[in-house]
C-alpha cells in the first residue's frame, strides 16, 4: 500500500467518527464492517489507491460528518424577504466573504471563529467553531481539571423557502457565552441572534407538532417509533419506550388501547424514532436515529450520522409540516 496515501488518510480521519465514515462508505456502495480506526484507515486508503473514491470525496465526507454527527438542530422559519445580495452585504459588514467550498472548522479556537460562508443558489451555509471547557475531577491531585472541547455550529438557511436550521454541538458546562456555569441558552441564543443579523430577519421556531403527528400516525410509517411521549387532554404526560430490540412501541397493546381512546387529540412532545431505510426510496442505507422535541422545535441525531442522513430527516419533517 502507498504509504503517502495511508498517511494522508490517517490525517484526514484523525478526528472523524469511524461509525460515520462506515455509514458514509455504505451510502456510497462500499460495504465494510471495520471495527477499528486502523482497519478503517487501511480500507479507505485502499479504496483511494484503487481510485474507487477520491481524496476530495473523502474530505467532503469528513466535513459533512463534522456538520451533522451528534448535532442538535433547531428548526426555524422566517416571514421577511431575504435576498442573496442583502446577505452578501451583511456578511461583508461582518468581515466575511463568500467561499466556493466548505471547509473543516478550526479546532479549539480561542473565540467563536467562522470556518466559511457559502451561498449556493438560495442556500446559505455558515459554519463556526468555538471552544468549551469540560471540568473533571483529578482525585490524585485533589483538583478540578478543565478539558478543551471544540464545538461546531452550522447555519443552513434557504432564502427562497424561508426555512432555516442551526445545527449545534451539545454545550459543555463552561462556554464563551456566559460567565456562569451551564446557562446553555446563552450559547444557543448567541448563534440564533447572529443568524438573524446575517439574514436580516426574525427567526421563528418552527412548529413541529403537525409533522410529528403525521410521522407517527400516517401509514405506512416512515419511522420505527422507539419512544413516544405525549400530553393528553387532561394535561397528563405519558411516555412509552421499547426497552430492547427493534420493536415499535405503537405495536404494544397498551399503547394501542390508549391511542384508540384519545390518540387523535394527543399533543406529541418528545418522540425518539428510527427512520426506516425501506421507506426512504433509497435515500438511507441503515436505520437512522432521531429525537424530536416539539417544545424546543429541535431534532437531535446520533454521533455517527453524516450529512445526507441529517438532510433526509430535516427534509421529511419539513415536507410534513
Amino acid at each position, binding site marked *: 500500500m502507498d504509504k503517502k496515501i495511508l498517511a494522508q488518510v490517517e490525517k484526514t480521519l484523525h478526528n472523524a467518527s469511524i461509525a460515520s465514515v462506515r455509514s458514509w462508505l455504505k451510502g456510497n456502495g462500499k460495504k465494510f464492517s471495520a471495527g477499528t480506526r486502523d482497519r478503517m484507515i487501511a480500507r479507505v486508503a485502499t479504496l483511494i489507491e484503487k481510485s474507487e473514491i477520491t481524496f476530495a470525496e473523502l474530505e467532503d465526507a469528513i466535513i459533512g460528518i463534522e456538520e451533522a454527527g451528534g448535532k442538535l438542530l433547531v428548526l426555524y422559519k422566517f416571514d421577511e424577504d431575504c435576498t442573496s445580495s442583502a446577505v452578501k452585504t451583511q456578511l461583508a459588514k461582518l468581515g466575511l466573504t463568500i467561499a466556493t467550498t466548505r471547509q473543516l472548522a478550526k479546532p479549539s479556537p480561542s473565540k467563536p471563529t467562522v470556518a466559511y460562508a457559502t451561498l449556493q443558489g438560495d442556500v446559505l451555509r455558515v459554519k463556526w467553531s468555538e471552544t468549551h471547557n469540560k471540568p473533571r475531577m483529578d482525585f490524585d491531585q485533589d483538583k478540578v481539571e478543565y478539558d478543551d472541547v471544540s464545538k461546531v455550529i452550522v447555519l443552513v438557511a434557504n432564502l427562497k423557502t424561508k426555512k432555516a436550521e442551526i445545527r449545534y454541538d451539545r454545550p459543555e458546562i463552561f462556554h464563551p457565552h456566559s460567565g456562569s456555569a*451551564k*446557562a*446553555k*441558552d446563552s450559547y444557543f441564543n448567541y448563534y440564533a441572534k447572529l443568524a438573524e443579523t446575517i439574514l436580516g430577519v426574525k427567526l421563528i421556531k418552527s*412548529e413541529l*407538532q*403537525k409533522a410529528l*403527528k403525521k410521522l407517527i400516525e400516517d401509514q405506512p410509517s416512515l419511522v420505527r417509533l422507539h419512544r413516544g*411521549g405525549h*400530553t*393528553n*387532554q*387532561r*394535561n397528563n*404526560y405519558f411516555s412509552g419506550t421499547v426497552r430492547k430490540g427493534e420493536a415499535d412501541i405503537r405495536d404494544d397493546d397498551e399503547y394501542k388501547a390508549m391511542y384508540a381512546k384519545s390518540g387523535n*387529540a*394527543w*399533543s*406529541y*412532545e418528545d418522540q425518539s424514532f428510527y427512520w426506516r431505510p425501506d421507506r426512504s426510496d433509497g435515500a438511507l442505507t441503515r436505520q437512522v436515529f432521531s429525537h424530536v422535541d*416539539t*417544545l424546543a422545535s429541535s431534532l437531535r441525531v446520533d454521533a455517527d450520522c453524516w450529512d445526507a442522513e441529517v438532510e433526509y430527516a430535516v427534509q421529511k419533517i419539513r415536507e410534513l409540516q
Partner: protein
Amino acid sequence: MLSKKLESFSERNSTLAPLIEQLDSYLTWLVEHNVTEVIPRVAAAKLGISEADALALLGLFLEAGLVKPRYDLVCTVTKSVLGSYYSRDEIPDDAECRLCDRQHDADELRVELVFEIVKGRAANAAA
C-alpha cells in the same frame, strides 16, 4: 353559551367564529372533567390548529375574562409541574423536584404558559 364579548367578536369576525365556539366548548369539556387549566399546544392538538393560532384565540378569551394566564415551572426530566406563578418576576432560577430528589437549575427547567379557566365558568359548568 358564549360571553357577550366573544359573541360580539364572533359577529365581527365570521371566519374566527367557528374556532371561538370550538374553543369555548373545549373549555367547558375541560371543566366538566375537572381540568382547571388549558395548555395552548394541547388545545391546538384538540382543535387541529397551530399552537400560534391557539394562543391567539386564548388571547381573546383572556380579554373576555374567561381565562387567566399563569406560568408553570416544569421539570424537563419528569415533566411534572414544580411551581405555578402569576408573574414572570416570581419565577425562581432553581427548584427542587421531589420525583428526581434533587435541585434543578435553569438548564433542567422550562417555563410553560398555561391559562387557568376562571372560577365562575367552572361553577357554571358544574351547575
